[in-house]
């Protein structure tokens, strides 16, 4: 009898534990949606609303779309974003990448940019990822001050090579995707 009771208790405790974890996961998720995702959606919606309504969209369609519809334009975009002085300025919160990405998304949706270019564009708008955060990121990895001193310029210079390279790889990898659109 006692064995059964103990077994039941163990099962109950294990289930309670798992349910607790699942519930906490849900709580974390809702927290992140309210804190991070919804505010950004509000901001992005406002920007898109203004752009679509005022006709700035047409200007973007005429300047950004031709740039983003061929590999050389995308390469140029990635080189600019990867310039070691600019990249830390463009990095914070990935706001620039998110806004430019959304603008390109609107243009893709309108058919001004071929769907296949979505893949290289994802890399072209983002060679500066984390360039603002190198000292903090290295500190989180418990790096010595000396490492940070070398690591910051090393990453920034590396991006000048790997930024455009990523666009080329993505371009090659985009063949056969959404063919005919």
């Amino acid at each position, binding site marked *: 009898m006692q064995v059964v009771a103990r077994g039941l208790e163990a099962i109950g405790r294990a289930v309670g534990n798992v349910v607790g974890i699942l519930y906490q*996961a849900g709580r974390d998720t809702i927290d992140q949606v309210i804190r991070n995702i919804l505010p950004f959606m509000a901001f992005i919606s406002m920007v898109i609303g203004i752009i679509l309504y005022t006709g700035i969209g047409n200007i973007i369609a005429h300047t950004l779309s031709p740039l983003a519809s061929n590999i050389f334009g995308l390469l140029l975009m990635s080189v600019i974003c990867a310039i070691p002085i600019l990249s830390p300025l463009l990095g914070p919160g990935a706001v620039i990448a998110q806004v430019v990405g959304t603008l390109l998304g609107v243009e893709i949706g309108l058919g001004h940019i071929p769907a296949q270019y979505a893949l290289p564009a*994802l890399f072209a708008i983002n060679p500066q990822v984390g360039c603002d955060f190198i000292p903090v990121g290295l500190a989180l990895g418990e790096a010595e001050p000396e490492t940070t001193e070398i690591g910051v310029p090393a990453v920034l210079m590396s991006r000048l090579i790997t930024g455009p390279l990523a666009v080329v790889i993505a371009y090659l990898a985009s063949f056969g995707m959404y063919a005919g659109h």
Partner: protein
Amino acid sequence: MEIAARIAEGFIGMFQKGGTTFVGLVTGIIPLLIVLMTAVNALVRLIGPERIDKVAMISSRNVLLRYLVLPFLAVFFLTNPMAYTMGRFLPEKQKPAFYDAAVSFVHPILGLFPHANPGEIFVWAGIAAGITKLGLGLGDLAIRYFLVGLLVIFIRGLVTERITAIMWARRSVPEGQSQGEESTSAAEAAPAVETGGAAFASGEEA
């Protein structure tokens, strides 16, 4: 009066357009995102950070694990920005390269696992919204973004490690000897492996 009314209408219209966009984003992205993020968050909690630490220690040993597997595991389980703490298992000279690889993966992962960096989801979702609008599926783009992302972080890890090594060597060599740069950087590369092993061993003790 009529002009004023028209201006007011235009003003409100601008925000109505934004409101429509907002509703589209909320109903189109958030429901799936919430359920998916809950599932993955639960999985991460069930596995626990201690086990990830153990895998990380093993992963620091070779180049393929270091700049491919470790950044993925770090970003998937610890998410942005805690992923970079995994750098503590690596020797000093490889920390910048690991950071470069890890930070470069916080967006390519979003198409499949948005829990890893929900605050910056629009790097992915902005462009993806255009594909959705064309009536095309996102799976193809998401998986290619993910795979190309893995390849790119691996290359970034290698390139940054190389650049770090060169800069490290150049700094420790007195200025007069800069002509012998090639040979010193080659000579530096060999001890770098040894110190790497030593730093790893001390990391294990800790």
